[in-house]
């Protein structure tokens, strides 16, 4: 008997993921639920990084710039000017994407290593500017607190963050499997060949960048209204930027599923280490663990799982 399959195997996987996470949200204790929310947002940021840097190979160190500009815009409009959230959030997303385009596109037009330098410099400079310029609006180095929140309590925020993550992950997963996604990968492998085939590599880099900035800005806006505060040291700091990159590397570059795994791994690792190691040593420990994992297995946890599945299939014959 031939089994009729209406859903492809990855689709079943996505549905299982959806079902499990929906059930988990109803039963999980608040402390772990809050960790899950943090992990969901880190996963969104990691996916945002992955869609540009994992796929096309153009490493960005400036994603916090996009996320932070989006977050600051909506926070300032909502708190200092008192606009309603349904107006400030789209403006924040547009501002984050616009600022990203303005500063990063000159670097993206060029090949090779310029992009990473431009993005890192943009992030460091915005950190200085936010502290120094118009601190009456931005709150200076202390940032803004008591920003209006979207939802109060763990459960609605859990579902909001998870639904966002699920839609973004599924959408980006489809993009990476489309023709455009194939072209991103081809650009990483050999940009000259791609442009030799008559494709405008800049246009595809622009598509990847726009998607990446959109995901980052959406994540930044919702995240700001979840934690209800924003401060330059945390959003434009090296630690936040590295957590995004390490989540992608630990989970598996260029897979979309990898960053989700990596974000959960890192968030829970930090949450579990918290009672035992305090302050700076905790970050040293965490960075070394993640980096050790990456050096040992550069395809990340996703690669380890893939190898295990292949090994099992081969053994079965």
């Amino acid at each position, binding site marked *: 008997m031939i089994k009729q399959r209406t859903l492809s195997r990855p689709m079943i996987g996505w549905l299982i993921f959806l079902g499990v996470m929906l059930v988990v949200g109803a039963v999980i204790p608040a402390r772990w639920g809050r960790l899950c929310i943090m992990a969901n947002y880190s996963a969104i940021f990691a996916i945002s990084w992955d869609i540009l840097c994992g796929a096309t190979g153009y*490493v960005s160190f400036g994603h916090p710039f996009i996320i932070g500009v989006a977050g600051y815009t909506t926070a300032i409009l909502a708190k200092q000017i008192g606009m309603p959230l349904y107006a400030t959030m789209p403006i924040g997303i547009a501002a984050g994407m616009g600022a990203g385009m303005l500063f990063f596109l000159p670097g993206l037009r*060029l090949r090779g*290593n*310029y992009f990473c*330098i431009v993005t890192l410099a943009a992030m460091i400079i915005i950190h*200085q500017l936010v502290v120094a310029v118009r601190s009456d609006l931005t709150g200076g180095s202390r940032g803004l607190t008591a920003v209006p929140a979207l939802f109060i309590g763990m459960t609605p925020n859990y579902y909001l963050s998870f639904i966002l993550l699920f839609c973004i992950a599924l959408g980006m997963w489809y993009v990476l499997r489309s023709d455009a996604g194939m072209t991103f990968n081809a650009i990483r492998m050999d940009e000259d060949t791609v442009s030799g085939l008559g494709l405008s590599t800049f246009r595809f880099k622009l598509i990847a960048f726009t998607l990446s900035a959109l995901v980052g800005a959406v994540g930044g806006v919702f995240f700001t209204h979840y934690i209800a505060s924003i401060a330059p040291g945390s959003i434009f700091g*090296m630690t936040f930027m590295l957590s995004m990159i*390490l989540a992608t590397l630990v989970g598996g570059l260029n897979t979309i599923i990898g960053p989700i795994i990596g974000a959960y791994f890192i968030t829970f690792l930090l949450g579990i280490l918290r009672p035992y190691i305090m302050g*700076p040593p905790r970050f*040293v420990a965490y960075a070394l663990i993640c980096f050790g994992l990456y050096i040992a297995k550069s395809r990340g946890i996703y690669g380890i799982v893939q190898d295990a599945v292949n090994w099992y299939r081969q053994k079965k014959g």
Partner: protein
Amino acid sequence: MSIMSIMSIVIQGALISSLYALIAVGFTAIYGVGRVENLAHGAILMVTAYVFYILSELMGIPVAVSFIVAVASGIGISLAIYYGLVKRFKGNPTAIFVSTLVLAVVIQYVFLCFFSVQARNVVSLVPGISQIAGLSIQNNLLAIMGVSWACLGSLLWFIRRTQMGRAIRAVAEDTKGAIVSGINIEKANVVTWIWAGGLAAVAGIFFASYTHVVPTMWVFPLVIAFSIVIVGGLGSIEGSIIAAYIIGISETAMMMLISENLRGVFGMSVMIAILVIRPRGLLGKEM
């Protein structure tokens, strides 16, 4: 604007520019010879500044001895980065970017474990104040200028006149061609990393005595190195020196005329403008 303030901008700017040149030249040389961006360059400056601070301030060892030990430690870290990260990830630029940056942040956190975020002052290498054209200038800054030119001059002599320097230039120009001509690529790389580390160490010590030591002090030199190197042309040592003076003097002017907070911001703006108008930089050869 009076003649005095123009003089003061030019002199102050030139002094700080010589420090910037010293910061950037190692970064550009490493890019030139191996096409590697060492994002831990700022961290080398920070570590050597701390080594100098610990030896001279906390342990009371004479300044000259501390200076030599600090420079040796800079060379050591530089070689460790080359052998530990850059060689291991050869041909994988993403891994090199990320690993050198992770290293810099890890080093920052290691120092945060032992020293607080509070900035500490370092002993002035050359104490006292001189009068030049009616301006009071710290002897320390004059010493920076002298040391910077001594270092850069001997570096240019080394690169242009010696056999090893010619080999390094050949590798930077065309690595495959250099291999064919029988140049030892490995040796050219190691020599470059050694003197890049040494110059970064000297720059770190003077940068610390000009400002202070703090675990986050590696970020600013890195930004300065970026903007100078892109304005001057990635990989061009002469271009970097010229760009250091352009950026240093115009930044000093901006800071004196508009706001103190613009340090670093200006260099970044020039960098983006250069990327739009002339991506290969002032003296860069090709993209």
